[in-house]
């Protein structure tokens, strides 16, 4: 069981950098993904634009479980997506490997009438190709219920 996260703990998360990771868009995974998300046909070799997200989250250098633990939560607590922003700078390619860098950019505690106490944690991830060009930027926020906060 995770130790309850105090407001100070939460605010100290802002600025924490994730380990640098990498992500390869494997052909078979791309096929399965585009099938699962009902993608329309794409030009040969071009990755679905959602790989700006999938590569960012998949290659961010820590797992979602580790991210949830970092903010004092776990998958069993039912964390939910809040907002997501994608910036597409370069077309991503199937078969390419991308470096992923970034970290936590925001954290706030809120109280809702129905939801009770919950935390919103935001993080930015940059997806960088082999030439050093940022191909995409993915900014996301998760909502963490704090039933015991």
């Amino acid at each position, binding site marked *: 069981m995770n130790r309850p996260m105090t407001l100070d703990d939460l605010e100290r998360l802002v600025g924490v950098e994730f380990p640098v990771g990498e992500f390869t868009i494997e052909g078979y995974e791309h096929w399965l993904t585009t099938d*699962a998300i009902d993608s329309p046909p794409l030009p040969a070799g071009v990755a679905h634009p959602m790989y700006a997200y999938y590569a960012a989250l998949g290659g961010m250098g820590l797992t*979602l479980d580790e991210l949830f633990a970092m903010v004092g939560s776990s998958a069993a607590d*039912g964390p*939910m*997506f809040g907002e997501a922003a994608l910036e597409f700078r370069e077309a991503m390619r199937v078969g390419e490997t991308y470096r992923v860098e970034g970290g936590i950019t925001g954290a706030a505690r809120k109280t809702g009438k129905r939801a009770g106490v919950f935390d919103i944690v935001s993080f930015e991830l940059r997806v960088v190709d082999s030439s050093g060009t940022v191909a995409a930027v993915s900014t996301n926020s998760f909502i963490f219920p704090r039933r015991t906060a």
Partner: protein
Amino acid sequence: MRVSAGTELPVFEVDEVRAAAMKTMAVLLRDPNPIHFDLDVVAALGMGDRVINQGPTNMAYVVNMLVAWAGDPARIRALKVRFLDNVRAGDRVFAGGIVTSVAGDGRHQIAECDVWLDVVGGTRALAGSATVALKGSEAAGETPAK
């Protein structure tokens, strides 16, 4: 195709959101959140009796709409969404959008759009905005942003 403020984007429809696809995406994304595959957890969390679609997949339906409209994924420049409600296995959903302005960025004509994903007979699951570069022949004229 001529594009100006008020142009409606062709709807992208998913007839039935598939629980099996959620399992595939959970594995591909290494997403351990059991609300996407374990009905017991969904029930224990008071979230109903159907598994919950991954938020990024809901976002992907909107991207699919933009790809189908633009004709080239490279013309999609940005997308920002807020997740408003859940999509569940068995739901029928529509991704839609409308152009709010068209303006030049020096090299291209850029369409700013409002976008959304609606559950048929249900609620709006997400809403946001998108930026799409147009082919030169598509822009019907620059319009001020609302």
